[in-house]
């Protein structure tokens, strides 16, 4: 497993995946840089709690970036294998297909949480630059950075499943587009839709529920995807 993961990290070298994990969180904060740069005075008037309002503004783009980022990264990883017919060579090694799948998922999860960590630092950095108040809400900051990633684990499992069994990568990308449309209109969606979860909204107003659901259903979807991947023939 350790060696497989090392191999997977080697494969994504110089392919732009690390750059994308950097661009994602940077873009989310950069949009607020533009937003606050253009109309800072107006935005500060909107709420007494400047930090809280700023975090909400950042969070309005986080789910969209996460859903699309997952779709891009999963499809990228699958196409690295697809392009050179490397699935066959990879499976021919003395490793089980289950481990191959686990290694891909682990790699993606690491990228996702690396991205979340960057989001936390970028959000904090620009928040401090804006001088939103002396007390920095570190707990809220961590919550808005990591909770969406946990809540998005089912999406990651689903997209990896679709991407790794599709020969035509147009399919997982289209599913990703549907995902972002759902995430964008998440206030309309019922609570059971997985694309609503990264927005941390639910009828009980408890973001923790989304996190727990995300981890639980994410694990379930991961198992289903892994079993299906292992049963299929590699062409």
């Amino acid at each position, binding site marked *: 497993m350790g060696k497989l993961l090392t191999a997977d990290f080697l494969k994504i070298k110089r392919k732009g995946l690390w750059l994308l994990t950097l661009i994602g969180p940077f873009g989310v904060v950069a949009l607020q840089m533009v*937003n606050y740069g253009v109309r800072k005075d107006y935005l500060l008037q909107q709420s007494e709690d400047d930090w809280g309002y700023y975090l909400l503004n950042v969070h309005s783009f986080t789910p969209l970036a996460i859903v699309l980022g997952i779709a891009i990264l999963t499809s990228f990883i699958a196409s690295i294998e697809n392009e050179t017919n490397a699935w066959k060579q990879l499976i021919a090694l003395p490793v089980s297909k289950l481990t191959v799948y686990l290694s891909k998922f682990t790699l993606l999860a690491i990228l996702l949480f690396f991205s979340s960590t960057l989001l936390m630092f970028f959000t904090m950095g620009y928040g401090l630059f804006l001088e939103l108040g002396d007390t920095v809400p570190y707990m809220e900051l961590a919550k808005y950075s990591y909770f969406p990633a946990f809540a998005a684990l089912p999406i990651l499992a689903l997209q990896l499943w679709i991407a790794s069994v599709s020969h035509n990568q147009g399919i997982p990308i*289209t599913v990703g587009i549907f995902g972002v449309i759902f995430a964008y209109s998440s206030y309309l969606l019922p609570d059971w839709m997985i694309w609503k979860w990264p927005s941390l909204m639910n009828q009980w107003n408890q973001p923790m529920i989304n996190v727990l659901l995300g981890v639980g259903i994410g694990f379930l979807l991961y198992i289903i995807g892994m079993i299906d991947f292992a049963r299929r023939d590699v062409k």
Partner: protein
Amino acid sequence: MIALLQAEWFKLRKSKMVPIILAGPMIGLFIGLSANLEDNMQGIEINEWYISLFSMNLTYALLFLPLISGVFTSIICRYEHQSGGWKQLLALPVTRGKVFVAKYILIMLLVLAMQILYLGSIFAVGIVKGYTDSFPMEIVWKSIVGGWVATLPLVALQLWLSIMFKSFAAPFAVNVIFTLPSILAVNSERIGPYYPWAQPFSMMYIGGNTDDVFFVPWEQVLTVVGGGFILFFLGGYYYFQRKSI
């Protein structure tokens, strides 16, 4: 040229294109039927058809249309990227320029087909909700054709990138990076009119000055959409001429 278009069409028919085109009206139906703006709009004198169209156009034009057009361009280059397809295609007695133009025309026809299906979903939402007002024919022209015109530069850029990159994810990533900021750009009167990725929304938007041919002034259509189209189309065209395959 006709033969080239036919050849592209044959390849496309085997690329699971139809379900992806149906995604457009499905998104339209989903938003149109789940959004409930009627209650907020009580008492306002407005043609009923516009009410659901507000929320449908918002999501469809802002996110879906720019993103899906990138998927089309990737799919149309898919067979060529697999095992030396470019070599086979260009070994035929065709010029590279014609191949590029044929692919571009076919994608624009697909986007047009999807726009017409989207119009069908607008109509379906109205029937389900039981609208009695007369159907405003101007949205056919302004929203459907306007949105189609606005994708001209975006498709050109995406085709350029799809020819450049083998994988689907790379051109899509560029597409996402430019499309997401348009959510903010359309709120800004200064940036919005000049941002090419915000144009599908601006042109499909209903309301505003209805004397013009589209919902946005001609100058904006010509400079931003037209200028962007020329820039990206020529960029892609000349890139493809020089690309080593």
